[in-house]
């Protein structure tokens, strides 16, 4: 378990991926490639399929049609990917215990765990709260702990589902600073947001989803300055995209 696979999970390739729940199509024939590099930001209104796309990229949502491949393999276990859900679940353990759990799950030796816990909690600014029960943290603190727990797995790809939703500006800035630092370390960040300001601040590449379809994707600068699709222009103009 401590051996790190020399193979890579990038690029993550969606080939005509459809994900359906019963009669409802959540993702509709998605064609998308997630390459190494700056963060990819998924934007779009609620229910546009952002969360499901992240889950599919993680390997947690099985396509009803089409294929997803990670570095060319379709059977890649999520050992090199980590996800922070929109409402992360805190294990009934201390803050440090939550990070330790993730470290142990990815096979980090016991002797190394304490040092890694200190490093990770320092990275997200929770080092003072290591012994606090995780479930008593505030929303922003729980998001930061979930980030630390995801990073404990030393992912190559970090998937984030609206990590700053319902956080105040200070907590949002703290999370965005961590995301920036993580991205600069070479970890591929893929995050969903419906906050265009956040997409502007963090995005290297933007993917606009609407009703389960990838409407437009490309570098952030061209998406914001010269949107090609009508949906993108509507969305950027701050009008309601329904």
């Amino acid at each position: 378990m401590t051996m790190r696979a020399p193979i890579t999970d990038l690029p993550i390739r969606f080939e005509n991926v459809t994900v359906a729940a019963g009669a409802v199509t959540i993702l509709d024939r998605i064609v998308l490639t997630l390459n190494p590099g700056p963060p990819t930001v998924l934007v779009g209104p609620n229910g546009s399929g952002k969360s499901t796309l992240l889950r599919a990229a993680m390997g947690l949502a099985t396509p009803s049609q089409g294929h997803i491949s990670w570095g060319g393999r379709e059977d890649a276990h999520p050992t090199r990917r980590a996800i922070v859900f929109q409402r992360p679940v805190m294990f009934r353990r201390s803050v440090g215990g939550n990070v330790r759990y993730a470290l142990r799950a990815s096979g980090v030796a016991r002797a190394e765990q304490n040092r890694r816990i200190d490093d990770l909690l320092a990275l997200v600014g929770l080092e003072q709260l290591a012994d606090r029960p995780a479930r008593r943290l505030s929303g922003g603190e729980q998001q930061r702990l979930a980030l630390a727990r995801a990073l404990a797995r030393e992912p190559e790809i970090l998937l984030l589902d609206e990590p700053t939703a319902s956080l105040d500006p200070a907590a949002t800035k703290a999370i965005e600073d961590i995301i920036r630092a993580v991205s600069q370390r070479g970890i591929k960040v893929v995050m969903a947001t419906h906050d265009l300001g956040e997409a502007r601040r963090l995005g290297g590449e933007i993917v606009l989803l609407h009703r389960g379809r990838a409407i437009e994707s490309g570098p952030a600068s061209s998406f914001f300055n010269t949107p090609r699709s009508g949906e993108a222009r509507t969305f950027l103009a701050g009008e309601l995209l329904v």
Partner: protein
Amino acid sequence: MPDDVSAVHLLLTGDPALLAIVRLSLMVTFSAVLLAALIGVPFGALMALIRFPCREGIIVVLNALMGLPPVVVGLVVFLALSRSGPLGSWGLLFTPKAMVIAQTVLVTPIIAALTRQTIEDLWIEYRDEMSAMNIGPAGRVMTLIWDARFSLVTALLAGFGRAAAEVGAIIIVGGNIEGFTRTMTTAIALETSKGDVPLAVGLGMVLIAIVVAVNALAWTARRAAERMAA
């Protein structure tokens, strides 16, 4: 035991016969709860996590078995352990071991059913995170049991309450033999039918005091542990 001396007085003066009854009661009950926990907690956890045909039916049966009538359990264990029964060669009938077996049969479904519910609720909450962390089946079971440990204490206490209060099963398989298989509940049943109501009431008070003390201890331990870990 003379009729005019209350059980409380006997207890206070350290009457060896009475202490032996209390000791045997506790020994049988705690052994049964321990065995039932070793069987029921993993079984309940597996029932919570594994999907297979007829699962719902088995859960209904398991829940129904929480209401097993003790005398019926006593009768079945009696038949199994009696000389001509399938386990007759073990020679366990009318021994404390037979009483432990009967109470284990009685308590295991209670612990398993309550564990199944507790673990399943927690699994629904943890499923996404644990799948994302690539945790295997054994790791899932251990994590869920550990993280549900404070709730599982309640399941164990329910089992303990059942075993401590029960008389029907152990009086059949134990035989209420003085100095050997007589427990507090069987002694109460006997003394009441003999007409020694004060002794029965005294024993009843001792029994209730022990049940309250065990629950208070578990509550205190749980509170202390929760403050530290939660």
